[in-house]
């Protein structure tokens, strides 16, 4: 079917574009990015920390040559920090400066009613676009060439803030009471990320494509390490990825994710390792695991894991 071959071809094209920006995407991720572009919907990315959720947004921006506008969410974030704020100081300053001009403006008005009429004519100069300080969300809508808007760790923000986002996510517009509705010049690609710290509202989820990024398959992870840390030899790459994926079968407090694998690969390269040895692993385990308890729990298994990942290196 011509239609589907073209769509699978364009999904592959998305995959290639992301790869050229240094992001190795699985087919699910590429499909999501392709679809977000086609049906103009934000992507809500969930998954454990360090699997490349934020990185995805950066890669999309880089591959399309667009600016990325990032908004980090935290508790207590409100519309003044996310959407827009009035430049109070500027308004104040201008009123002070213009005070002297008041006489000239009202000069020919001899009654109070007339003076008021004339003042009304000046209207809302102080509440015009000149005095709006755009915050990330408004800035994203105003970009003339479009952009990638990354709303990072949405689960950290309050529930009220979620409702503030709804208008932007579904219609790509915001309403400022004094100015009216501002629609996007070019609809931005919106990526929301969440670590699942709290359940997001159904209204928000409904407006997004829901993409879950988990730990990658060993093959994919090898390719990721290959692009990110070019200095690693093929055997070492296979071994270290095999080791990490075995580590993930243990009951640990914080499982090592892709970013830890990359860090570890960098460390091993710096140490000049060409092969995974027990001592080497034991010395550098603190790069992979972030809790003392996790390291203790892993220590007895290191030898078997190294041996097994070595064997996989031979046969895989």
């Amino acid at each position: 079917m011509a239609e589907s071959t073209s769509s699978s071809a364009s999904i592959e094209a998305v995959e290639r574009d992301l790869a050229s920006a240094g992001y190795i995407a699985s087919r699910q991720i590429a499909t999501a990015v392709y679809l977000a572009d086609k049906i103009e919907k934000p992507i809500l990315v969930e998954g454990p920390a360090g699997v490349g959720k934020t990185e995805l947004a950066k890669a999309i921006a880089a591959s399309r040559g667009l600016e990325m506008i990032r908004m980090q969410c935290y508790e207590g974030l409100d519309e003044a920090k996310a959407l827009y704020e009035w430049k109070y100081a500027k308004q104040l300053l201008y009123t002070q400066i213009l005070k002297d001009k008041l006489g000239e403006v009202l000069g020919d008005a001899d009654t109070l009613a007339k003076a008021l009429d004339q003042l009304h004519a000046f209207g809302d100069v102080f509440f015009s676009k000149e005095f709006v300080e755009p915050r990330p969300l408004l800035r994203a809508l105003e970009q003339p060439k479009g952009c990638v808007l990354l709303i990072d760790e949405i689960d950290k923000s309050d529930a009220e803030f979620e409702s503030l986002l709804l208008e932007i996510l579904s219609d790509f517009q915001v309403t400022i009471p004094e100015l009216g509705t501002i629609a996007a010049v070019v609809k931005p690609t919106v990526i929301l990320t969440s670590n699942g710290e709290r359940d997001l509202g159904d209204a928000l989820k409904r407006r997004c494509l829901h993409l879950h990024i988990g730990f990658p398959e060993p093959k994919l992870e090898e390719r990721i390490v290959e692009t990110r840390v070019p200095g690693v030899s093929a055997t070492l790459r296979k071994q270290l990825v095999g080791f990490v994926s075995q580590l993930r079968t243990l009951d640990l407090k914080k499982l090592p994710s892709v970013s830890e694998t990359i860090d570890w690969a960098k460390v091993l390269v710096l140490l000049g390792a060409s092969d995974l040895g027990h001592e080497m692993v034991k010395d550098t385990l603190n790069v992979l695991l972030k809790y003392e308890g996790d390291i203790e729990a892993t220590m007895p298994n290191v030898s078997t894991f190294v041996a097994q990942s070595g064997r996989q290196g031979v046969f895989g």
Partner: protein
Amino acid sequence: MRDTLHRFFRAARGAGVRISPAESIDAMRAAAEVGPGDRAILRDVLLLTMAKSGEEKAALAACFDAFFTHPEFEQSPPANDDQQDADDASDDEAGQDHANAAADAASAAGQPAELGALAQMLLAQDRAAITAALSNAANAASLSNIRVFTQRGLFASRVLEQLGIAQLRDDIDALTASNPADAERLAAGLGSLRETVSEMVSQALLLYGREETEALRNEILRSAPMARLEQRQIAQMRLLIRQIARRLRERFSKPRKRQRRGHLDVRRTMRRNAAWGGVPFLTAWKRRDRDKPKIVAICDVSGSVAQVSDFLPLLIHSLHEVVSDVRSFAFSGHLIEVSALLENNKPEEAMKQIMASVGYGSSDYGRSLADFEKDFMRAVTPQTTVIVLGDARSNNLDPRADILRRIGERSKRLVWLNPENRVSWGFGDSEMPRYATFCNVVRQCATAQQLERAVSDIVATYQ
């Protein structure tokens, strides 16, 4: 393809994935964008647009695989495994063409012309055509409307009717005289056709009817007395309790700050406007934080009420977002704290351990209350709701109602949940009337429904 997707949405709802009309529109648009050609991509696309959580993704993926699995033509004996009613529209059309071709071929091969289409297909052993005919018949009989298992026979007979079973019977009768060998083959074919249809209906029930069946089962379970559940129902009950907990969480985990309009927070206003000389451009208003519920649950785990006690701590401990502080105690002869056990173990494990240490004895309310006062009275604060779950049957030992009075005085509310019927309170060794005087609320709590109401009311008093 649209019809197929509509049926898939219905099947997905059956699998417990909540799909709103807006989501189905999105899914349609997205599916139209990629086309039905590559099934793996279509699967990804539907997962992206329809499922909104990890569990939903897993359920939907399983549902997709069951729905879009194509019958294996090569290995199956005639019509035996062709139970799929769910084919892509494009495949349906292909099948149609096939059927016509088969019919042509059959008549060209010199089959008696008066035989019905179905008989011809069976004789020609054209599996593709039979599959297509089956799926058409299923559509005509609107098989996707099946909801409960009692409808199985009805839908099976409807499908067979649509297939033209009457004609086939006539054909068999006619052939018995003229061509007994063919008649025998047809009779065998009819038998396997019946089997196939019944399998097809069962699968349709699995796909489309699951939601209804589960809703029905849960409804029965909700109003069944918890003390008399069978072993197999207990696991289902745990699931139900989890659902109830989710419902309560959604209802009560709304923001806990309420603005006190009209009360200016002078200090914060001054600080916020310091930049422009204290002229109050921005005002800050006083807020009042609402307390989250603090709950102390004291559960009787003696033989008579053990099963009910199983579920109350389970429910309360799954209300993390709503309730800030929970402590649970279990007693029969004496009392121990079980909060840590419940937090750190699976419910089955925790219950087993609790039962091993204090369970199944004969209950001694007086001694257990004394234990509580001695060691844990400090857990009770003026913000705490104390829930006591038990039948108040103290085996004629001293009930120590005075301790309960002191607990009631210290706490915000004291709620007694009794799994026994109200009629039997106060008879035999039941001390319920004496205890009831010191409780703010006393209610019967024998079913999951009553348990949900009781806990919901308790949490609601903090809102």
